């Protein structure tokens, strides 16, 4: 029942927002909806920690530690983004981005009804046991977020939305083919004709008996398909466009929660493939794509001129890191992956929230036009931005240092010397590029604009998330660590 409620709440919030007549009602529906969702996600986590995997409707919805972790991350990011969005979209209206009151209300309705739907689809990705339903949900995330990318209706937003929809559509049709082949690989098993035949829990239990050739092709297709959604190179081209055109809170959701969901789909198939074919084959492909993603992100970060595109390339880089961690196939690698996913889901939205503040104040994303001085104009945002940038680049004491350190240890332990060397090399390049740009932006001279007052919705949600980031650096709550360990155990299968 808990799982059903978790899906139903954001859906109801979306319905209320569609029917609501005032902006305030929509905001309330969203905040309340995401608040309840977050609480429910916490309850799911505690249930999973207490009793092991939870399922409902004869295994139709299924939550083990991995699903619970992804749900928790999605729900918490969604809640913070919802708080931030209140201030963000109001500021858009105040600065005259919407033509008139009616158009403004339509924009509010669009944002506040599509976002909960988007979140609902992402939660379904994590909770669906049936791999086919999971595919439907991932396609659902595309369909619900296309209009968020197109939110401002500018020429560039159209272009970004088009690329997002078409590249995503092609990728996902490959993933569907892969899902189908996974289903076919089980056709010799008894009872594969029933609904449960595509259930992950059933397939995973019989993974060793699946048809190997079919599984190999299935994994390749799914890797390309969900890899497109996760923004792994060379299928990453939609990502910078979509991230830089969507409203910032939506971009924050895309960059963390959606990335998690796509990786989650990949992880589920990786588990099947590694149990069927051994960890060698899927692992090698993942490490290859991961290193390639990092390598492609590096020059674009070094030469970037646009703040939000910089964050998008950082996201591609992070997706690459997580793919490498998954591909290592060791227990340490899986632990590093889950830790990294958790920490990234705190850090990347924070970066976007800061970027949103900068964007709304300076009305541009271009480094060349902002000319630095963020720390002076917006001391809070500037400080947090610098801190979050250091965190995402894996600087101690922030927790992404721990996960990346674990990753390097796991890689060296597994004998992936070349991948480790490239990882360090690209990591150094990205560090240099991102620090140069963000450092210049935050600490640069600027043109002496006066400091702005505190803006409660946006600044407080940002500060709250920054607080979480600092907290995680020094103290990982025991239940969260237990959940992460549980999720890593799901991957390695013991």
């Amino acid at each position, binding site marked *: 029942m808990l799982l059903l409620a978790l899906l139903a709440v954001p859906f109801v919030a979306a319905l209320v927002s569609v029917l609501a007549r005032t902006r305030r009602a929509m905001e309330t529906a969203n905040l309340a909806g995401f608040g309840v969702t977050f609480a429910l996600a916490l309850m799911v986590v505690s249930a999973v920690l207490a009793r092991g995997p939870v399922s409902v409707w004869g295994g*139709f919805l299924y939550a083990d530690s991995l699903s619970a972790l992804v749900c928790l991350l999605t729900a918490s990011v969604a809640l913070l983004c919802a708080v931030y969005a209140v201030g963000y979209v109001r500021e858009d209206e105040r600065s005259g981005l919407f033509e008139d009151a009616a158009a403004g209300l339509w924009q509010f309705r669009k944002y506040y009804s599509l976002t909960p739907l988007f979140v609902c689809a992402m939660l379904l990705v994590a909770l669906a046991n*049936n791999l*086919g*339903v999971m*595919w*439907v949900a991932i*396609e*659902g995330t*595309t*369909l619900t977020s*296309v*209009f968020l990318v*197109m939110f401002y*209706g500018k*020429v*560039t937003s*159209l*272009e*970004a*939305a*088009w*690329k997002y*929809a*078409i590249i995503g*559509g*092609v990728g996902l*049709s490959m993933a*569907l*083919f892969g899902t*189908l*082949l996974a*289903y*076919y690989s089980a*056709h010799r098993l008894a009872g594969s*004709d*029933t*609904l449960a*035949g*595509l259930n992950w829990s059933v397939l995973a239990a019989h993974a060793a008996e699946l*048809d190997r*050739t*079919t599984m190999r*092709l299935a994994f390749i297709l799914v890797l390309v398909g969900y890899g497109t959604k996760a923004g792994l190179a060379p299928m990453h081209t939609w990502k*910078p*466009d979509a991230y*830089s*055109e969507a409203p910032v809170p939506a971009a924050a959701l895309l960059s963390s929660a959606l990335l998690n969901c796509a990786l989650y789909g990949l992880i589920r198939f990786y588990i099947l493939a590694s149990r069927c074919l051994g960890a060698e084959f899927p692992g090698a492909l993942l490490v290859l794509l991961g290193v390639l993603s990092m390598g492609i992100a590096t020059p*674009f970060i070094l*030469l*970037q*001129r*646009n703040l939000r*595109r910089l964050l998008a390339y950082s996201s591609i880089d992070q997706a690459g890191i997580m793919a490498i961690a998954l591909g290592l196939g060791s227990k340490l690698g899986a632990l590093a992956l889950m830790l990294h996913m958790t920490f990234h889901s705190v850090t990347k939205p924070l970066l976007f929230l800061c970027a949103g503040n900068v964007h709304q104040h300076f009305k541009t994303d271009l480094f060349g036009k902002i000319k630095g001085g963020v720390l002076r104009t917006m001391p809070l945002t500037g400080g947090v931005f610098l801190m979050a940038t250091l965190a995402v680049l894996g600087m101690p004491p922030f927790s992404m240092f721990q996960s990346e350190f674990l990753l390097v240890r796991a890689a060296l332990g597994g004998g992936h010397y070349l991948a480790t060397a490239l990882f360090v090399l690209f990591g150094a390049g990205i560090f240099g590029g991102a620090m140069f740009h963000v450092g210049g932006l935050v600490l640069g001279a600027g043109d002496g604009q006066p400091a702005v007052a505190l803006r409660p919705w946006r600044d407080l949600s940002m500060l709250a998330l920054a607080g979480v980031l600092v907290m995680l650096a020094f103290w990982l709550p025991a239940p969260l660590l237990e959940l992460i360990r549980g999720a890593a155990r799901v991957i390695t299968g013991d």
Partner: protein
Amino acid sequence: MDFLQNPEFGDRVVTLMAAFVLVLQIAMVGQRSLVMNIRVFAAQSFLLASIAAAIAWYNHAPHIYFAAGMTVIVKAFAVPYLLERLVDRIEIRHEIEPIVNVPVSIVISGGLTLVAYLVGASFYHPEAEPRSLGHNTLAVAISLFLIGFFMMVNRRKALTQVLALLCLENGVFLAAICLTYGMPLIVELGVFFDVLVGVMVLGILVYRIRETFESMDVSKLRRLRG
């Protein structure tokens, strides 16, 4: 009418319809008129539904009838109707201008069919297990998929790319029908729902692109770089 019960006849009919599906796919590559392209797509979807119905009949698997019915409703009627309305609404020129000219495109499609045959043969071994109805159409399914990809990169107009995406989907559907005799019902339902919503979403996008750029040429979408 006892030949209707004859599995050999069923095999022939399914194979024949699969061949026509492939012919229609190549016709789509060769066809220059946009409206005709949409209609060919509708015909192809209709044939796919017939294949599904034939397999349902010969395997006594009533749940596939549902997939066949949904295909007819969604892909043979609803989607082509929406697309044709869109073509009327945006008053575009009705000619498709592929990047590679038509004869070369057809030759490339033929080559892709060959690749599909090789891929299909690599993991489907008819000798290894008893011959089951429709499995030999796997090569057609894969070639629909590959030709759909080719159409995607070979066309500049937004609407034709949507059509190519739908062809990819048709390839997956044929594979689903012939390999696993359909997917679980709830998944089918979800996939059809996604296809329908997807076409609407893409249709709105195409409409907005047309309004904003005065053209559907997606190669004009080149402002976002780096």
